[in-house]
């Protein structure tokens, strides 16, 4: 029983990261009907930006400023950097293909993905870059937190879960309570009609990429704080994020959040109660089952076309 609670906490941490990645996939698909396969690599770039900022600030062992400030700066710079990257990708790799057959931007997305991976390898080398978060404040991020019997929820996990939820709530508020959110919803519903109603569709798409990529950047830093940054890390995260988006309902923002959290929980429970070797197998089996049983995902809606 005590293990179950720990597994749930583990799953929630992992799921929070997957949810942030899944949101980017869902948002872009909702508006452009494009699977942005480069999204996982934007997440990877976010992890590297975080590493760069951390190194510039003296590293985890001797930061020039308070570790809390370092963390905030890492997140902000990674999010801004990835937002810029997202805009560039949209502008140069997808916009010219907006009216092309749907396979064209898909292939372009794959190309961008490989381009980012191997550029990162060339620029940063094949070695993994470790944040060394263990050294932050003498291990404060790992040893302080909730320690209640066999349950351990270190500060770092609390930061990740709280930050991820805060970002998700902020996104929901933006989409549901602001003019730009209304414009995004309108564009996702019917791009042509939205344009005829005076909505600057190009601007909405750019903002979508900014938000999605910024979330991926944040997710990259969160992940690398507990693991590390490597040029090919985006592939797996992208795959899991995409799976989460599909499970939740591709195109649905609440669906992406739910899908991500469920995926993380499922993975943690499979690893815990079966074995690590089964977790990926079950995760992708769920994807197949979901496509067969409920192709729109848990919270997705079927496209109804008037004839």
């Amino acid at each position, binding site marked *: 029983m005590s293990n179950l609670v720990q597994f749930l906490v*583990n799953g929630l941490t992992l799921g929070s990261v997957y949810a942030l990645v899944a949101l980017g996939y869902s948002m872009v698909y909702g508006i452009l009907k494009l699977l942005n396969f480069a999204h996982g690599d934007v997440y990877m770039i976010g992890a590297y930006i975080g590493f760069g900022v951390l190194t510039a600030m003296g590293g985890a062992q001797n930061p020039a400023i308070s570790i809390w400030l370092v963390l905030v700066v890492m997140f902000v710079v990674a999010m801004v950097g990835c937002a810029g990257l997202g805009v560039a990708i949209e502008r140069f790799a997808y916009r010219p293909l907006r009216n092309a057959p749907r396979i064209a931007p898909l292939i372009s997305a794959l190309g961008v993905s490989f381009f980012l991976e191997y550029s990162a*390898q060339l620029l940063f*080398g094949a070695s993994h870059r470790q944040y060394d978060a263990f050294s932050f404040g003498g291990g404060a991020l790992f040893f302080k937190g909730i320690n209640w019997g066999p349950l351990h929820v270190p500060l770092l996990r609390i930061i990740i879960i709280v930050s991820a939820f805060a970002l998700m709530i902020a996104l929901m508020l933006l989409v549901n309570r602001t003019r730009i959110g209304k414009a995004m919803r309108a564009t996702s519903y019917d791009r042509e009609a939205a344009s005829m109603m005076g909505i600057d569709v190009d601007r909405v798409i750019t903002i979508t990429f900014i938000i999605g990529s910024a979330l991926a950047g944040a997710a990259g830093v969160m992940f690398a704080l*507990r693991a590390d940054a490597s040029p090919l890390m985006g592939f797996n995260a992208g795959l899991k994020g995409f799976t989460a988006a599909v499970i939740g309902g591709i195109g649905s923002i609440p669906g992406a959040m739910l899908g991500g959290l469920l995926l993380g929980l499922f993975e943690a429970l499979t690893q815990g109660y079966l074995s690590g070797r089964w977790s990926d197998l079950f995760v992708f089996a769920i994807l197949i089952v979901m496509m067969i049983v409920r192709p729109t995902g848990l919270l997705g809606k079927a496209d109804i076309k008037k004839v």
Partner: protein
Amino acid sequence: MKRRTGLFALLVALAALAVVAAAYAKPAKQAAPVAAVRSAAVPCSKAKIAIMAPLTGDAGFLGVEQLSWAKYAITVQNKLLGTKIGLYQGDTQLDPALASTLAQRYVSDPKTMAIIGPSTSGAVVATGPTLSAAKLAAISPSATRVSLTIGGDTVGNHFYRVVPHDGIQGPSDAAYMVNKLKAKKVYIVDDQETYSTGLADTATVALKAKGVTVIRDSVSQTVTDFSSIVTKVPGDTDVVFLPWQQPPRAQIFAQQMAEQGKKAKIFGSDGTNDPGKFKFKGALVSNFAPDITGIAQDKALIAGWLKANPGDKVGSFGPPTYGATQIAMLAIKAACDAGGGKVTRAAVLAQVPKVRVKQWILGDSWGGFSATHDPVGAKFYIFEIQADGSYKLVG
């Protein structure tokens, strides 16, 4: 009609699955190439050695280090021997299929007289038939799977290695765990790759023979969140053994163990040996080579390498590569001397087991290969990671 078609399709799919499963039930043996490529004698001045290592990807750190030492050996030994042997570099990316393609390339090039590597056991198996048919000597500085030279899966007479195999590492690590760490319960997590499962198996057998409780688990190489596996590690576990080839993941695992308050000692195999990446204080690492910075006869050699590679540190994968390259070059030189200025692959292959080196980079002298093409008298070394990340020899 539709139902019958669907049923037929399902039967065909199941039959295909059964065939594939049957193929995987036995370890895959590559078919030998239809035509063995023979190399003509080439002038010694044109002879080349090819290094096959993962220069990029997750194990890129290993390949890059090996390459730097191979290049250094080429420079130093060419000067000492008066030869002009060149070096090709092949990136296997830890992918046996790519290694196989590289092997074909080098076999097709008549100037290639020897291979340094392949670095990993999977690549050795994949390239075995091609290199063996071409009689191209392959001297690996790091492939440690037992069955490459012993047992029913041997890859061919062309293959040699300068490092001991996992049949020694598993029992050696197990002995340390029992004798020095007094372990009663050991948790072993393999990463499903053949190196890992092989080493995990030999360690399990050795530990159980000594009355130790062994719990096995497994994780995919793409996983970096081990939280739930760590949660499962029982509180009374003495040692968690990680027979992996990715030091950064061993570091992450160790951190996640500490995060959950687990007290078991982390013990990594030689694949986790990288002071720059696996630096968790108190963890143990085994390796097939000693720390050569402590060997007096290597002082000048190390100084030269550091000069040629400013900012780098001496690791544990590089020095055996130097040794392997040295053996290959000495074999080529001997074959050249016997061949009156021309050399063939078969002649080089015949010279490899005859090579002796008085001042061997890994200590003492190089006394040649055993009948199974393994180094004579080799052993594994145990290091403890210090607070500053350095590795201290403890066993």
